């Protein structure tokens, strides 16, 4: 279909504004002269970080690697069991939904929970979570669903005939090893790379667990030493490594969709049956849900105490909750339009320009939240842009920029499902592009749009790293309020707010599931 002439340039400007402006500002900041506190030297030489840089980098890599391994060990069996064990359609859907929940809860809430657990069990068993092992464990609890989700998508996309052809000559285990897993391997790798990158750039969890990692060092350089240049310079290698991995991931996936959450439900593959497998599968899935959802919820309920704590927390934080909700909604809408637009033109016109636009859109995956915050300040903190920087608009731009890749990937998956012939058939009737968009494209992509909106909304609602740096004076989002209260030792209120935040996020998820049921299955996330 012939696209409107101005669509591509408009999207370039929009995505450039969202992604390239903070990134360019960050890179420019790394070359800029030092602030008044510095020595005035330019460029990257002479960075006064002595030996303190090496250890955080090493720790970050160790945490990212360990979290990835642990997430694969937990996520792959969980995906396999949910996809292949002989569950009823209802049980399968229940486990599918439950296995997503840990990823919906912001990682800093997981960290808060396990600090409380640490306090309870340390005197008894001497186990301490305030080290890189603890961070690995907590991040795995938050991120294993990414591996489970992508792997399950891979497993569900394996043609059942391929497995059945193997089952005619081999036992179930050989079929799993020789056919099923190799075919789902690209999705497994994609999930593992997501986890590695997210753990590498994670700031909040190591900070809460008092483990000095690379992103924490960036934050310290910026907020404690007021050294913008060092913070920017430190961000660059992290961005380069992460983006390199994202490119590898794109290459591995070769244009496949990352996730199809409820595809294949209802026992599509009748391959690996057996009562033993079903019992083992149910036990394993329940154990994971217990560890990553039920225990954290129970701990928070215990710490929060009586109902009055919740009422008090709601009273004192109602404004922050409303503010966070409004910003998250705006951020989600702001990410949706360029994300779906870029995905559409990428899928429909396979030119180099659209490929470049797509890759620019993916860049924020690789930018640590703290670095994104530094970039946003560099880009928008100018007297003539006070309307943006002095208001909450900068937070919305931050959300849109950080979570644009999710919107882009979901949009791409949604467009891939559309047969181009549908648009061509419409073109025979009308030449108005807006008409085709409104009457054909948007109704057909409503599931993907709804999924993208809710995912970005949930992620924005829990965003902490970049918001911490760009929030206007006198305002607080709910994650910032929790983060600040935590440092004042208000455990009960913090736990109540964590539960309220999780409850709001879960209600978004419930709303999405209800909408999906109403709109019909087949959405692609």
């Amino acid at each position, binding site marked *: 279909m012939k696209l409107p002439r101005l669509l591509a340039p408009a999207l370039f400007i929009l995505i450039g504004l969202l992604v390239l402006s903070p990134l360019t500002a960050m890179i420019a900041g790394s070359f800029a002269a030092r602030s008044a506190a510095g020595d005035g030297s330019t460029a990257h030489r002479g960075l006064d970080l002595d030996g303190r840089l090496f250890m955080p980098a090493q720790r970050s890599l160790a945490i990212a690697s360990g979290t990835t391994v642990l997430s694969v060990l937990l996520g792959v069996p969980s995906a396999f069991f949910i996809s292949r064990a002989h569950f009823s359609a209802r049980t399968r859907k229940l486990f599918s939904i439950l296995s997503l929940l840990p990823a919906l809860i912001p990682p800093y809430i997981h960290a808060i929970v396990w600090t409380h657990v640490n306090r309870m069990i340390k005197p008894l068993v001497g186990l301490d979570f305030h080290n890189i092992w603890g961070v690995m464990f907590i991040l795995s609890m938050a991120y294993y669903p990414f591996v489970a989700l992508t792997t399950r998508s891979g497993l569900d996309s394996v043609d059942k*005939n*391929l497995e*059945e*052809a*193997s*089952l005619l*000559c*081999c036992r179930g285990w050989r079929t799993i090893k020789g*056919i099923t897993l190799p075919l789902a391997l690209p999705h497994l790798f994609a999930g593992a790379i997501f986890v590695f990158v997210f753990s590498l750039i994670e700031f909040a969890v190591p900070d809460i667990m008092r483990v000095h990692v690379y992103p924490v060092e960036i934050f310290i350089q910026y907020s404690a030493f007021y050294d913008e240049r060092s913070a920017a310079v430190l961000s660059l290698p992290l961005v380069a490594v992460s983006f390199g991995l994202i490119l590898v991931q794109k290459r591995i996936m070769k244009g496949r969709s990352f996730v199809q959450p409820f595809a294949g439900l209802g026992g599509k593959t*009748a391959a690996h049956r057996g009562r033993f497998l079903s019992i083992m599968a149910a036990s394993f899935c329940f154990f994971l849900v217990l560890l990553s959802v039920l225990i954290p919820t129970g701990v928070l309920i215990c710490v929060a105490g009586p109902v009055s704590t919740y009422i008090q927390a709601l009273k004192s934080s109602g404004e922050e909750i409303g503010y966070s909700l409004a910003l998250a909604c705006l951020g989600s809408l702001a990410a949706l339009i360029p994300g779906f637009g870029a995905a559409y033109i990428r899928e429909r016109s396979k030119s180099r320009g659209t490929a470049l636009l797509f890759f620019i859109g993916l860049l924020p995956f690789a930018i640590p939240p703290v670095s994104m915050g530094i970039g946003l300040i560099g880009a928008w903190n100018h007297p003539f842009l006070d309307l943006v920087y002095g208001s909450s608009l900068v937070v919305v731009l931050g959300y849109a920029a950080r979570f644009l890749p999710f919107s882009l990937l979901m949009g791409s998956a949604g467009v891939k499902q559309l047969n181009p012939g549908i648009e061509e058939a419409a073109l025979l009737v009308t030449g108005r592009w807006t008409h085709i968009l409104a009457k054909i494209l948007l109704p057909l992509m409503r599931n993907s749009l709804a999924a993208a909106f809710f995912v970005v909304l949930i992620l924005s609602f829990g965003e902490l790293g970049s918001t911490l740096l760009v929030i206007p004076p006198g305002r607080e989002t709910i994650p910032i309020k929790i983060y600040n209260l935590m440092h004042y030792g208000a455990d009960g209120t913090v736990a109540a707010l964590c539960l309220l935040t999780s409850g709001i996020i879960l209600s978004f998820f419930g709303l999405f599931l209800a909408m999906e049921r109403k709109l019909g299955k087949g959405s692609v996330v």
Partner: protein
Amino acid sequence: MPKEIWWKSMITVEEIGKSLGDRQILNGISLELSPDEVLALVGPSGCGKTTLLRLIAGFEKPDAGRILIDDFEASSPTHSIEPHKRKLSMIFQDLALWPHLSAMGHIEFVLGEARGKQRRSYRERRSVEATELLDRVRLKGRMHHYPHQLSGGEKQRLAIARALSSRPAYLLMDEPFSSLDTEIKQEMIELIGEIGEKRRMGILYVTHNAEELAAIADRVVVLKAGRMAESSCRDAFSRTLHVLSAPFARKRGLP
């Protein structure tokens, strides 16, 4: 006394029934397939042909009746032996070639892996056997190619080679030639006929196509709405199809 006489070597389907939700897919189907015959299963779309094949292969359990393979109960509503223990193989409608394995890899995967000290010598023997089989279906020069690098006919031949490599006693074929042009189809029919005859292999063949029926089948079973409409021998083909499934036959351009 030779062992063979103790059991009847055939697939026996007895009063098989299968439903999906409220819909009865198969209802009281009974048939027999001997080791040296080609039985064609015909009928309109949705009449349960593929479901019957899947039940015989052991991918699904019947709701009623039972399936005996060489006089052993292979499937019943309460019991089902695993597909790989049924001495049968299948050529799927979409071929179901494994995209991550080469032509050689397909055959080697089916031939399996030996354990312990014999591993190395077994690998050599396996390689020789795979090469011979690929040579027989004229794929020797393409043995290191992956399915996406093969032409339509070559993919078809690979699917046949894979099905034969496990030395099955019975071969199930689910409209395997439906997407081929006439020339390749003819070639494949000849190949199957030749191999079936040489190996004394029972073939259960699902098709829509009258030409394929005439070229391959010894017997025809017509299914209609999940029930067996008629079973007849080769000589009664035309009459059976004409009289008992006239609308279907007319649709397919049969006399």
